[in-house]
């Protein structure tokens, strides 16, 4: 039961990354604002809502929120992405960090934990 749930989350993440790719490639219907970094709600499923954000350096951030959490507003999600972007930029500027490696920065982790606690 537990493994099935984990696989579902992975599948959700992969699908949402595909949606992100679709949005930034610009093919198909005209998109809302091509120049914006925030992508908005990628797609809702029955249990989760997935939001996307792509930086100019092609780094993709995905936030998955429980559908039962209706109190989170759009601008709160936007500010969460900005905080993530800011703290990711700090990680990138750390000369000991090798781009592409998993992030091990404590500062980054604490920002993410604080955001998750605030959102709940």
């Amino acid at each position, binding site marked *: 039961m537990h493994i099935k749930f984990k696989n579902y989350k992975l599948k959700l993440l992969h699908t949402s990354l595909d949606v992100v790719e679709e949005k930034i490639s610009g093919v198909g219907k005209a998109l809302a604002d091509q120049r914006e970094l925030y992508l908005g709600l990628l797609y809702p499923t029955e249990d989760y809502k997935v939001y996307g954000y792509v930086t100019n*350096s092609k780094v993709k951030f995905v936030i998955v929120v429980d559908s039962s959490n209706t109190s989170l507003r759009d601008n709160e999600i936007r500010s969460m992405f900005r905080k993530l972007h800011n703290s990711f*930029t700090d990680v990138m*500027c*750390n*000369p000991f960090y090798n781009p592409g490696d998993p992030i091990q920065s404590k500062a980054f982790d604490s920002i993410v934990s604080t955001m998750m606690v605030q959102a709940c």
Partner: protein
Amino acid sequence: MEDGRMRVKCNFSGDQKFLENGRCVSKLESMGFRVGQGLIERFTKDTPRFKDELDVMKFICKDFWTSVFKKQIDNLRTNHQGIYVLQDNKFRLLTHLSAGKQYLEHAPKFLAFTCGLVRGALSNLGVKSIVTAEVSVMPACKFQVMIQKM
């Protein structure tokens, strides 16, 4: 990762000195690459998404160059087929050397880091390239960017 190489126009006496110099220049270039990656992350944090490759090059020539060297690139030329030449008539890292032929052969050492900087910045914007530089008249220099198809 180590595709960009710094092609230098210089003459050295002795093979040993030549090899050592080449290694140092490569090292400078790769250091510049890593710094360029970090810098571009910071500089593009609040900018809107880039439309195309030319947009990216214009950003490098204006905003990026201004943030790093306090001036813009003086001239950008392209053949619209992936080659760009960025001309800086008063390159900050060369202005403290006396103009004229005396230090012309040492100029490439001062350009290696910047070549890496440009290559690293472009790399993180999704553009793979080879960046070389040449100096003909101090303190002017030209950076040549060759876009590599991914």
